[in-house]
């Protein structure tokens, strides 16, 4: 159908141009020698191409098995944090870990899709939606494993035998100190409604980040829907993940984050960004990044080993120091308060007990719809 038009391009020549397509026009009067000279090169490449194709075809097939490929870890944590743990784990056990990192809300859909396809690909996973992990545990989708390390975590923040939090996902206000003075910065959640912040704020996408969705659920349950509606009128720039939101306040494109996972901010501060956190005295929402093993994992032994490692005091301390996370492990030195961030023990959490989170979970679809209508 298009051929008829194409042929215009081929057939004519107006002197400016173009001997392109010359080789195609064999029947149109090109001297045959020209083509004959090209054939050897072409057939050479043809053979190389065939050999390459055959080789890689085999290669394709060999990529099917997952059990023999080391440990695959699905993660909704920051990719630099995953990179860190993968390296530490390899150094201490000699086992290489491949991590697949994506926002919690998308990661869970992917895991569900794989379940539908009858595929379990990863041997360990951490997600930011604990309510879903509990649901999976009850449905028998999780492998039962009680890591000896999990005893060091408060029992009300874990589901014994199934999942344990690898860090708290505390959500705070954050701002860029180059653009906003400390005395002008918002002090409470209500301060975000001040007209001066209109068009100045950013936040993460609840369609991407599980923690962002929990923030919405918790804030809404405490401040009511009308507060969220007023906030939505502040023209907030929604960024995908927490990494992108952090970049947005660092660049100053929007100097204030209405909500941000604070370990991303602390990690950026450690790298020299002039950022500050605000944790209002009335409390902040917090979700939990929880780790577990899927039933039918291709490599359950390695998965268990990795869970032990992730919950260990070495891994937890390392993340606190390099990634700015807040560990929930009770026997390690808590992360130092800095730049407006309180120590975990001084922090008042808002609508963020495991019970609260489980209560919000069945409403996830409605909450998402509402969030989308307001902010996206």
């Amino acid at each position, binding site marked *: *159908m*298009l*051929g008829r*038009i*194409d042929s*215009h*391009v*081929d*057939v004519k*020549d*107006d*002197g*400016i*141009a*173009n001997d*392109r*397509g010359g*080789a*195609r026009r*064999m*029947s149109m009067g090109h001297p045959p020698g020209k083509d004959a000279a*090209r054939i050897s*090169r*072409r057939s050479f*490449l*043809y053979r190389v*191409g065939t050999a390459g*194709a055959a080789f*890689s075809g085999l290669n394709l097939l060999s*990529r099917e098995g*997952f059990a023999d490929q080391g440990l*695959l870890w*699905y993660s909704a944590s920051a*990719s630099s944090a995953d*990179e860190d743990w993968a390296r530490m784990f390899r150094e201490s056990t000699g086992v290489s870990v*491949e991590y*697949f990192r*994506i926002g919690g*809300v*998308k990661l869970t*859909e*992917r895991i*569900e899709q*794989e379940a539908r*396809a*009858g*595929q379990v*690909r*990863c041997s360990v996973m951490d997600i930011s939606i604990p309510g*879903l992990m509990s649901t999976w545990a009850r449905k028998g989708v999780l492998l039962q494993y009680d890591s000896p390390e999990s005893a060091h975590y408060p029992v009300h923040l874990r589901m014994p035998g199934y999942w344990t939090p690898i860090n708290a996902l505390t959500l705070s206000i954050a701002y860029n100190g180059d653009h906003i003075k400390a005395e002008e910065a918002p002090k409470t959640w209500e301060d975000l409604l001040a007209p001066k912040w209109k068009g100045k704020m950013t936040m993460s996408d609840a369609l991407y980040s599980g923690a962002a969705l929990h923030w919405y659920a918790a804030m809404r349950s405490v401040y009511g829907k009308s507060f969220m509606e007023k906030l939505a009128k502040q023209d907030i720039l*929604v960024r*995908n*993940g927490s990494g*992108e*939101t952090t*970049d947005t306040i660092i*660049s*100053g*494109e929007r100097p204030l984050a209405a909500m941000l996972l604070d370990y991303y901010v602390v990690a950026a501060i450690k790298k020299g960004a002039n950022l500050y956190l605000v944790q209002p005295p009335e409390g902040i929402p917090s979700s939990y990044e929880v780790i577990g093993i899927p039933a039918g994992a291709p490599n359950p032994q390695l998965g268990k080993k990795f869970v032990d490692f992730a919950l260990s005091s070495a891994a937890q301390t390392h993340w606190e120091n390099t990634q700015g996370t807040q560990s929930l492990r009770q026997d390690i030195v808590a992360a130092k308060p800095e730049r407006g961030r309180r120590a975990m023990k001084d922090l008042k959490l808002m609508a963020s007990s495991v019970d609260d989170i489980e209560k919000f979970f069945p409403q996830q679809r409605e909450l998402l719809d509402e969030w989308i209508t307001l902010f*996206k």
Partner: protein
Amino acid sequence: MSAVGDTAGRRRTRFDPLLVVHIATILLLCVLILYPVAILLNQSVRGDDGSLSFGWYLQAYTSLRNYQAILNTLIVAFGATASAVAIGTFLAWAVVRTDMPGRRVVELASLVPFISTPLIGALAWILLLSPQTGLINQAWRFVYGSGSIFNIYSIWGIIFVEALYETPLVFLLVSGALRSMDPTLEEASLSSGAGVFKTTWRVTLPLVLPSILAGALLVFILAAEQFAVPAVLGTPAKIRVLTTSIFEAQSVYPARDGLAAALSVTLLAIALGGLVLHKRLLGARSYATVAGKAARPRRVNLGRWRYLLLAVCVLYLVLAVVLPVVTIFLSSIRTIWTADFRLEQFTLANYTRVLFAYPAAERAIVNSLILALVGATATILLCALISFLSQRARLPGHKILDTLAMVPMGFPGIVLAVGLLHAWITPPLVLYGTIWILFVAYMTRYLPVGVRSVSASLAQIHPELEESSLASGATWLQTFRHVTLPLLKPGIAAGWALLFVAFTRELSASILLYSPRLEVLSVVIYDLYQEGGFRTLCALATLQVVIAIAVLAIARSITRLDQSAEAQELR
């Protein structure tokens, strides 16, 4: 050609292997193309409990957000089409019909889609025109104190970037038509006293109008299908289009499968509608001024204006290629993106990260190259078979074959992906989670590109060659293997290169179909963007550009790759 058909008819026996191949090919195309559509249609009319329900369509057309997405899709498609047609026609006229200097340079416009992708273009324009941090906007503030010249996160930004990438299609079609037009018509107008511009307006333009319209319809389809540009530029500005809404409905937990399917069917209807119109238009047209003789069209003498015209044309090239590619490259060798280019900010760390420290990127490079190598090879062979069956063998039903092979042109990548996802996720045959689902998606999506490339070159091979092979007692399959295929090599090689490049950069189907460990290049670039890994993604994008240029340079040196319009659908 009919003689060939007759020969085939006489020679056919009851178990003609050719007939078997013919039927098998048609069945294969049905599985590739019709099956996912059927699954999609079914999915769109099933409620959550599996009963028949039109609730998803109701939600698709009555919710304000979805309605807005449909409207935005049409606005973007019309906007991009109008701009691409205006710029493309102008460029074609300047190159073919004026004495503008530097016409050869401007002709490079046709290479734009080879060099970079709409995704790369959109990301580059963020670096240049993001309201606060974009370089051009920073320069603007430096001069004027505040504000910005243009906000790329807007519907105009989307239209701007899409138009840049779709202009070459119009340029190619219109310049082809302008070249082959009979110049005596214009001469008649001129000698009857009409001026140069009146002649251009009243004679030249109407003559190339069919080509312009054909280009416009293709651009319209491609703009409606575009995922990367609205995903990157529209999402922050809360501008939703159908492709991004489909992606959203399908990829977040809990997924709304039915809504995704209903929106997909809507987008499919828009794109297929465009395709049918396009076919009608070409079918009905009879502007038979295309003469076999190499007529030299008259060139308009522009005088002093020629340099202004050149400047305008070069501006297009700068905006479409030079600026984006240079920006992406500069960003890839720096630690941060600021307006002051200090020496200590330059680094190769982004490349070492991509090549050695970021496993997903390493895997993506390998996977994309494997898919491109194996996929392009398999696809082009299938395309050669289809061309041969539909143009030469002409068994009953060859028209179906021809039509089926062109349908994917109106099959948006993301819609195909939603269809494939549901088609191949449940037993008995689970392709989900394997590299084969990407393979099937790419093969289906780019079938028309390959078939057109092969058919164009098949049309130039005289059937006598095959007839003599048949007359000497060879079977059709032997003839295909030993006569047709070798003669087709140049067309096959050109098509292979196009497919290879297309496969290394496919995004809109891959984004729903890839799996962990089976990442591909564009997906990793897009994910890095979502994570805020802008420097790293620029290194990867630069590699993607380099791969494309290298493959095309090699292909051109051995086959003189034709820059025909099919090349324009690489996206």
